[in-house]
C-alpha cells in the first residue's frame, strides 16, 4: 500500500469515527467528502445533509431568502472560504422526520493550498431540551414567586395606606359634625361641604384598596382529592434551579404510594414553595457543602404529615411565638407575611402547622393535613420513616422566619 493511500485511509477512518456529521467542501462550496455520520443523516433524507458532489453553497443561497439560519450559515461559510474568518459557529433548529432537532455547526478552513472548509455538525437536541426545561422551570418558579410577592405586597400596601386613611376619615367626620349646625353661616357651609368631600373620598380610597387587595389575593380555593407526594414533587421540580444555584442538597423521604388529602393543589404548592424558599434563605450562612433540605411525607393515622427541615440559622429563642404573625420577620428585606400566608393555607385545609428548632441549629416545619382514604380503605398507619422521625416538633426547641 502506498504512503498516500495509507494516509487517505487513516484520515477517512478518523473522520468516520467522529460522532459529529462532517463534510469537507472545496473552495467553490461543493461537497468533496463526508463521514459516515453525515451519510447516515443523508440516508434518512434529511434535507440539510447533501451528498458528495452537491453544491452546498448553492443550496444555502437558495434557502437563504426564506431561512434566517441558512442565511447566517451561508455568510459564515463564505467568510471562512474567503479566509476572512478562522472559525464560524452557529446553532440552529431543523425539523427532521422524527421531529425537531437542534444542531451546533462549526465551519473551519481546510488548511491546504486549494482551500475549502470542514463543516462539523453535532446534534445538541438533548442539551437544548434540558436547557428549555430548566428555563420553563425558572419561569414557572418566577411566576409563582411573583404571584406570591404581589399578594404579600398588596397586603403590605393595604396596611400602610389604610392606617392614614383611618385618621383622615375620622378627622373629617369629626370636622363635619363640628361645623354642621343648623343655621350655620355660608362660609361654614362651605367648610362642611369640604369635610363631606374628604369623607367621601377617604371612603372611596378605602374601597379601592379593598378591591385591589381582593383582586391580588389568593384565588378561591378548590378542594379536590390530591396527592401530597405529587404536590411536593411538583414544588421541588419548580425549585430545582433554586436549590442548584444555592448549592442545597435535597433529601427526599416520601411515603410509599399516593398520600391523598383534600386540598387545593395551587394553594398547597404555594405553601410548599414558600417553605422551600424560606428554608433555602435560612441556609445562606451555612457552609455550601453542608446545606441540606430534607422533605419528608408520611401517613400518621388519619393525618398526612409533611416535614421540611433545613440546617440553617434557626430562630432566636422566644421569637417562635410570633413567627406566624403578619408582618413579623427576621429577614432583612422580608415583609413578614410568608408564614402568615402559610398558616392561612393550612387552616383552610383543616390542618396544623408547627415550627421547631433552635438558634443556629436549623428549622423543622411540620404540616399535618387530614388524610383522605378511598371508600372502605383504612388510613395508613405508617410511612417510610425510620424510628428517629416520629416527632420533629417536640424537643427541637423553636425556630423559623416570618
Amino acid at each position, binding site marked *: 500500500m502506498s504512503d498516500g493511500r495509507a494516509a487517505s485511509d487513516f484520515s477517512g477512518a478518523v473522520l468516520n469515527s467522529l460522532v459529529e456529521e462532517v463534510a469537507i467542501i472545496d473552495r467553490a462550496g461543493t461537497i468533496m467528502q463526508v463521514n459516515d455520520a453525515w451519510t447516515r443523516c443523508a440516508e434518512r433524507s434529511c434535507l440539510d445533509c447533501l451528498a458528495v458532489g452537491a453544491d452546498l453553497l448553492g443550496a444555502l443561497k437558495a434557502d437563504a431568502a426564506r431561512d434566517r439560519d441558512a442565511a447566517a450559515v451561508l455568510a459564515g461559510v463564505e467568510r471562512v472560504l474567503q479566509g476572512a474568518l478562522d472559525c464560524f459557529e452557529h446553532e440552529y433548529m431543523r425539523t427532521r422526520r422524527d421531529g425537531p432537532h437542534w444542531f451546533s455547526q462549526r465551519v473551519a478552513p481546510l488548511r491546504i493550498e486549494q482551500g475549502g472548509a470542514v463543516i462539523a455538525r453535532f446534534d445538541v437536541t438533548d442539551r437544548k431540551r434540558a436547557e428549555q426545561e430548566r428555563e420553563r422551570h425558572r419561569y414557572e418558579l418566577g411566576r409563582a414567586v411573583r404571584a406570591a410577592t404581589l399578594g404579600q405586597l398588596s397586603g403590605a400596601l393595604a396596611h400602610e395606606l389604610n392606617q392614614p386613611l*383611618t385618621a383622615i376619615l375620622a378627622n373629617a367626620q369629626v370636622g363635619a359634625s363640628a361645623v354642621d349646625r343648623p343655621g350655620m353661616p355660608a362660609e361654614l357651609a362651605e367648610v362642611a361641604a369640604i369635610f363631606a368631600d374628604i369623607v367621601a373620598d377617604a371612603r372611596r380610597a378605602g374601597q379601592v384598596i379593598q378591591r385591589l387587595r381582593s383582586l391580588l389575593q389568593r384565588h378561591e380555593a378548590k378542594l379536590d382529592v390530591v396527592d401530597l407526594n405529587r404536590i411536593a414533587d411538583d414544588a421541588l421540580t419548580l425549585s430545582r434551579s433554586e436549590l442548584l444555584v444555592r448549592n442545597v442538597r435535597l433529601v427526599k423521604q416520601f411515603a410509599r404510594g399516593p398520600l391523598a388529602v383534600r386540598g387545593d393543589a395551587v394553594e398547597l404548592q404555594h405553601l410548599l414553595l414558600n417553605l422551600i424558599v424560606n428554608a433555602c434563605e435560612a441556609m445562606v450562612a451555612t457552609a455550601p457543602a453542608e446545606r441540606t433540605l430534607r422533605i419528608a411525607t408520611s401517613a400518621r393515622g388519619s393525618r398526612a404529615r409533611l416535614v421540611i427541615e433545613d440546617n440553617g440559622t434557626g430562630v432566636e429563642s422566644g421569637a417562635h411565638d410570633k413567627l406566624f404573625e403578619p408582618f413579623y420577620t427576621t429577614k432583612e428585606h422580608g415583609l413578614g407575611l410568608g408564614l402568615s400566608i402559610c398558616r*392561612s393555607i393550612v387552616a383552610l385545609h383543616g390542618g396544623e402547622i408547627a415550627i421547631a428548632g433552635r438558634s443556629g441549629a436549623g428549622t423543622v416545619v411540620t404540616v399535618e393535613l387530614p388524610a383522605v382514604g378511598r371508600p372502605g380503605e383504612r388510613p395508613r398507619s405508617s410511612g417510610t420513616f425510620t424510628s428517629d422521625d416520629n416527632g420533629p416538633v417536640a424537643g427541637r426547641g423553636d425556630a423559623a422566619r416570618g
Partner: protein
Amino acid sequence: MNEDAPLVAVVDDEESIRRALLRLLRSANYRAEAFDCAARFLESLSERTPECLILDLQMPAMTGFELQQRLLELRVRPPVIVITAYDEPETRARCLAFGAERYFCKPVDGHRLIKSIHELIESRRRRDHGGVAPPAPLV
C-alpha cells in the same frame, strides 16, 4: 366633659389614629384616653377600667391578640372592638374567638364605630347592672 360619660380606651401605635379617634370619641360625648402600646394600657387598669376598648392588632412588643389574651387571664373584660388594617378571614375568626365583640377593617367609618360603642356599652350595662343606658352618641 361630663364625668359620668362612659370611658372609652384606644390602643393603637399610630399617633395620627389615636388623635383622630380621641377627637371622634370626645365629639360623641365619651370620655376617651389613648395608649400607644398594650403595656401602658395594662398599667392603666389598676386605676380604671374603660367601658369599651378600641384595639389595633399590629403593634410592636405586644400585639392586639396578645393583649386580648392577657385581658382574658386578668378577667378584665371590657367590650373589645378590633380595628385592623390587615384583614384576613383567619384574623377575624381569631379575634372573635378571643372575645372581641366587633371587628372593623381600617379605614373605619366613624359613625359605625360610635354606633357600635354605644350598643356595646348599653348592652353591657344592662347585663351587668340592669343599669341605665349611656346617652346616645351625637356623631
